[in-house]
């Protein structure tokens, strides 16, 4: 039977609370030396966390990637993009808050960015449609891709979505076509594209801003063809009861995808996940982007586009007689 989502985190959170309480007690009672007690608890927490994280199943990882305290794109943008200027609207009919875009500075470079966001509180989550991107989001993204291409700006994409939005309106506005056109656009951009999968990489909804020269993935992010719940419905014809098996079958973790050649590098997360030490997590993402951006800037545009083509061209596993 499947365990409750994130149940592995509960004892860790409890221990964490104990440590915080003890620290508070120590501050209130400076005459008492509780340092050895705190140190022992911290050591205990570190080893318990390490143990718990070694045993995570793929289904656990799916929930970790969806963790509501997990840093979102806005956290990374604040941490290391300077002077961001947000570009809004698809120039057709709407502006999507689930996918934001803009111009900014990274190190000494002018760049363009695309970022999917789910929101950090209920109000934001509603505004951002829980991260489900609309056709107008993808079309805004395409508009900014074209701008990046025109002005020679490297493109940095932060991917975090449960998937492309689906409803009557999304079908009417050509959700599929909006995604397809982005895939085509990204294939032809003559500027470096760095993709960072920071949380959930939900199918075509993620891929629509995730065709890149380098695809980097946070250690506890996931990326798959469908959420395990939906996969369970499609393959096992149920209401999602086989989601844990589906998660195993889909091989959605960073380790899985590195082996399959779908991502280029795993960005290690702080022990216990990016939300446990946000500043360390953002520093690591920044360093990884810097390293790859500097390397990509050495490559001329024509070669860049060809190498990107070759990168995707070779993905696939099949037999041939």
């Amino acid at each position, binding site marked *: 039977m499947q365990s409750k989502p994130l149940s592995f985190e509960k004892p860790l959170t409890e221990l964490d609370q104990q440590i915080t309480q003890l620290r508070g007690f120590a501050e209130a009672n400076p005459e008492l030396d509780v340092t050895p007690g705190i140190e022992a608890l911290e050591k205990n927490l570190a080893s318990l966390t390490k143990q718990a994280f070694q045993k995570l199943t793929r289904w656990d990882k799916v929930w970790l990637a969806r963790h509501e305290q997990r840093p979102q794109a806005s956290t990374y943008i604040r941490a290391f993009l300077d002077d961001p200027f947000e570009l809004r609207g698809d120039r057709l009919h709407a502006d999507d808050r689930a996918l934001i875009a803009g111009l900014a500075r990274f190190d000494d470079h002018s760049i363009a960015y695309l970022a999917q966001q789910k929101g950090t509180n209920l109000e934001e989550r509603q505004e951002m449609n829980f991260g489900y991107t609309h056709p107008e989001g993808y079309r805004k993204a395409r508009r900014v891709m074209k701008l990046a291409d025109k002005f020679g700006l490297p493109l940095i994409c932060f991917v975090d979505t449960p998937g*492309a939005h*689906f*409803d*009557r309106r*999304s*079908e*009417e*506005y*050509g*959700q*599929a*076509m909006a*995604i*397809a*056109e982005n*895939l*085509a656009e*990204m*294939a*032809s951009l003559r500027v470096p594209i760095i993709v960072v999968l920071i949380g959930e990489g939900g*199918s*075509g909804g993620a*891929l*629509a801003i995730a*065709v890149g020269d380098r695809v980097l993935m946070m250690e506890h992010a996931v*990326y*798959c*063809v*469908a959420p395990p719940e*939906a*996969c369970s*419905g*499609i*393959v096992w014809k149920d209401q999602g009861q086989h989601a844990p*098996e*589906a998660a195993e*079958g*889909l*091989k*959605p973790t960073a380790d*899985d*995808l590195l082996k*399959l050649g*779908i991502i280029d590098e795993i960005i290690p997360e702080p022990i216990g996940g990016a939300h446990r030490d946000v500043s360390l997590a953002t520093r690591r993402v920044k360093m990884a982007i810097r390293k790859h951006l500097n390397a990509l800037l050495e490559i001329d545009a024509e070669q860049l586009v060809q190498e*990107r*083509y070759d990168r*995707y*061209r070779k*993905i*696939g*596993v*099949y*037999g*041939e*007689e």
Partner: protein
Amino acid sequence: MAATMESVSCRKCDAQHPKLEFIKKNRRVCPECNHHHFMSAFERLELLVDDGSFESHDDGLFSLDPLEFPDYVEKLERDAAKTGLKSELLAGLAKVGGHPAAIAIGDVGFIGGTCGSVMGEKVTRCIERATDKELPLIIVSVSGGMRMQEGTLALMQMAKTAAACVKHSEAGLFFISVLTDPTFGGATASFSSLGHVIVAEPGARIGFAGPLAIASIREKLPDNFQTAEFLLEHGLLDRIVHRSEMRSLLTDLLEFSSP
């Protein structure tokens, strides 16, 4: 009863038709209600290309089970036996109304025509062959979306095929996308939607979100939701074409791109 007297009933209006006539003469289109029934890739090939002109390519490609997904190998074996195909797609070179073209035709009988590594590779090779030989491209799509059993590998076929479409288009070559019942998910969100001209069969179910996702929508949907007619109404399609007129339409369109 003799086999020739066998009858089939229309899936939509239930009208009874003699089987042989229904398949050979009506091409699986109900003469009563015009419902276009599924047809195999082989039948469709015969319908669309000039007799004897088809040169099959890459038919030795077959699916593996790289993710060791539950029951996948059994399903592949079952559908290979059922369809006589090694994969969900026929691809090659042919002539349509005398015009040479690269063509790929999907088969819905093979794991729902879902797109995995093999379909992605065959479609990509087909597009690249068209680019190399400076030929127009015709893709007849039928797909239940991306193949779950190949996970993110299947998803990546969307990027791969779309990139090949870009190269073909940048070479100044013409791509006609024909959508048939059903075309969904990752196929619609990649190569199927990148045709310079996109046509569909009447009543074909076409969309992004699959039926399970749509079933969870709590809003009123029009009767023609996610059909060829719905797409035409919303500016996502150029024309709806009866099966019996598809070959002459393709011929006419190919005239536009002929030197």
